[in-house]
């Protein structure tokens, strides 16, 4: 039955279904048990599956990820939650030095099917450290997949696929889109991880985005019609693997590319996309790939976040800059 589902529901259902289908799937982190997570993404999982399948941990992110490594070696498929983006950093060493590298180090004998869920990004008026966009730190680390859904149906499908993936996945949940609705029927099965999707076809220029900025780009494309621009919107869905083929195909068609993310632009993922597009579609580009993102400053206080975050205006200004190059 097709009904309006939210991103949060889609993710919660994905966790539920994954646990139902495979009793090696375990969910743990801070407050994910009784409370169901501060965003309720793990709601009712402990009630349904018991305390050995969904449990609260002590307050320690390195502990969460490091013990997930051990549980994965044992044979479990841990799905762990970092409560907020800004609290992923204590786990950085375990992620970079072990989660990403264990399989290679062991010459393929130890695979770590770990999913690390991270609610990320701003726009919800939160206090400091609750609105970070750390995705490009992880995109730079070989051995990880970095995934971020932009729609509820992708939320379900990509999370199921991430949990099933033998390779570790950093799963970035666009927290300000938890309440985004879409008419869909669960379970959804969308394109696989590694495939970018054209969300809106267009001819004037292409907007590239992932996670929370997909919706913003769709809004920008709608607004652009007033300017007589027919914008294409490509939802990357995963940063690693990066779907260069789909990206390049779109640029070859439009000749103009603008990449949008909330993260600070400097050394953000937009740089990688720009570098690859330029290398792979040099003669098709009518303008350099332009980047829209947060300024190169720390994420600001809540009342000032609107001035930091990319929005429809900043995107369209940039499209205009691209078109007038």
């Amino acid at each position, binding site marked *: 039955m097709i009904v309006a589902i939210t991103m949060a529901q889609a993710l919660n259902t994905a966790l539920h279904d994954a646990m139902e289908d495979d009793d090696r799937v375990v969910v743990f982190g801070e407050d994910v048990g009784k409370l169901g997570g501060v965003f309720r993404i793990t709601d009712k999982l402990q009630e349904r599956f018991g305390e050995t399948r969904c449990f609260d941990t*002590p*307050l320690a992110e390195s502990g969460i990820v490091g013990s997930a490594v051990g549980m994965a070696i044992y044979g479990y498929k841990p799905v762990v939650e970092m409560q907020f983006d*800004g609290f992923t950093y204590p786990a950085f060493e375990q992620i970079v030095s072990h989660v990403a590298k264990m399989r290679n180090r062991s010459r393929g004998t130890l695979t770590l099917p770990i999913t690390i869920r991270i609610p990320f990004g701003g726009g919800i008026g939160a*206090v*400091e*450290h609750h609105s970070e966009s750390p995705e490009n730190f992880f995109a730079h680390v070989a051995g990880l997949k970095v995934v971020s859904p932009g729609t509820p149906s992708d939320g379900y499908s990509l999370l199921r696929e991430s949990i099933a993936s033998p390779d570790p996945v950093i799963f970035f949940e666009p927290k300000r889109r938890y309440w985004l609705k879409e008419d869909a029927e669960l379970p959804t099965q969308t394109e696989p991880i590694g495939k970018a999707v054209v969300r809106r076809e267009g001819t004037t220029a292409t907007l590239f985005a992932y996670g929370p900025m997909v919706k913003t780009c769709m809004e920008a494309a709608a607004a652009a019609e007033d300017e007589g621009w027919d914008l294409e919107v490509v939802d990357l869905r995963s940063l690693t693997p990066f779907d260069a083929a789909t990206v390049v195909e779109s640029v070859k068609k439009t000749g103009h590319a603008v990449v949008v993310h909330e993260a600070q632009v400097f050394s953000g993922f937009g740089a990688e996309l720009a570098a690859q597009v330029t290398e792979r579609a040099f003669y098709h580009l009518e303008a350099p790939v332009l980047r829209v993102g947060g300024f190169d*400053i720390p994420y*600001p206080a809540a*009342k000032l976040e609107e001035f930091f975050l990319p929005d429809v*205006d900043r995107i369209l200004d940039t499209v205009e800059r691209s078109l007038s190059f």
Partner: protein
Amino acid sequence: MSTASTEPQATAPTVDPATMLPPEQPVQILDDEGNLHEVEGFPLDLKDEDFRNLYRYMVLARRVDKQAINLQRQGQLGVYASLLGQEAAQVGGAYALADQDWVFPSYREMGAALVRGVDPGKILHLFRGTWLSNHDVKETQFGLLSIPIGTQALHAAGFAMGAKFDRKDIVVMSYFGDGATSEGDPHEAMNFAAVYDAPCIFFVQNNQYAISVPLSKQTKAPTIAHKAVGYGMPGYRCDGNDVLASYAVTRQAVDRARRGEGPSLVEAVTYRMEAHTTADDPTRYRTPEEIEEWKRRDPIARFETFLEKEGLLDDEFRAQIDEEAKGYAARMREEIYDAPHGDPLELFEHVYVDPPPSYEEQRSLLRRELDASKAGE
């Protein structure tokens, strides 16, 4: 700085392992009925004035807290972390510090802030989101509220190391919660402080919960104070709802640090009466009975009974505190209510002393955006 000296620092005596375990019961000086029992080793050097001041700060803390919650309910703050129930722990602990001492708080220390003379209105800017903080750390000797759990413990340890190396009479107080004890940073901080005999107090408000996670799922240690053993420093434990115990116990730790004998851990056993923050729904994880149980141990009521018995509390004093509390509340509203954020261009002002050249471009971009949106209005 006077650090060029190469003579070795005096080292504190090693704590006698035999005396290391905290007592089974937390130190309590005022019992639940408000009767005072002196406890050996924790003398009370307080004058009437001090007793009244402790009361005053607790009441003010509660009133300030209430005003903050109201501001949040009125949509003036994005979120707020209440100290309700923890007044005695915070006030008693902070009262043991001297003027020159420093504090590195977490995000729930409005009571400690009050004692240290920090304007609560200024602190609320963090929760309103007008800026990421808004009080002068150097002037107040009160660090910025720290949100990443436990990280400030290292700043406290480092500051105390600095004071020690510089041979200055400064004691540093670091606040964190029961949940924070599970993180790596407080562990490293306590170890560093102990190794360098740094004058640092690790004051743990054990309010029984880390959001929804109860202490029993946070640690198997018999008490938080037991954690001090692993760093070779004393672990004190007090009834955190007893302001006199909080004071007297912390005072021992502070005096010890001031004598150059190194850091201590102080566990104040208390309870978070409110939700974790205004965004939390505690009915999901704790019972009304449990809350009732702790209500009976209210830190202010207990102390009130005592003060009344001692004849230290009269209507005039109550009225005076009430006035003061109203004044604080008014100042908080004045500071916060509809407080505008500053010029967005200020966002580029403080990141670097020497900003990179790209800041000029980015500032112009923001300026154009601001102009455009003004024009569009």
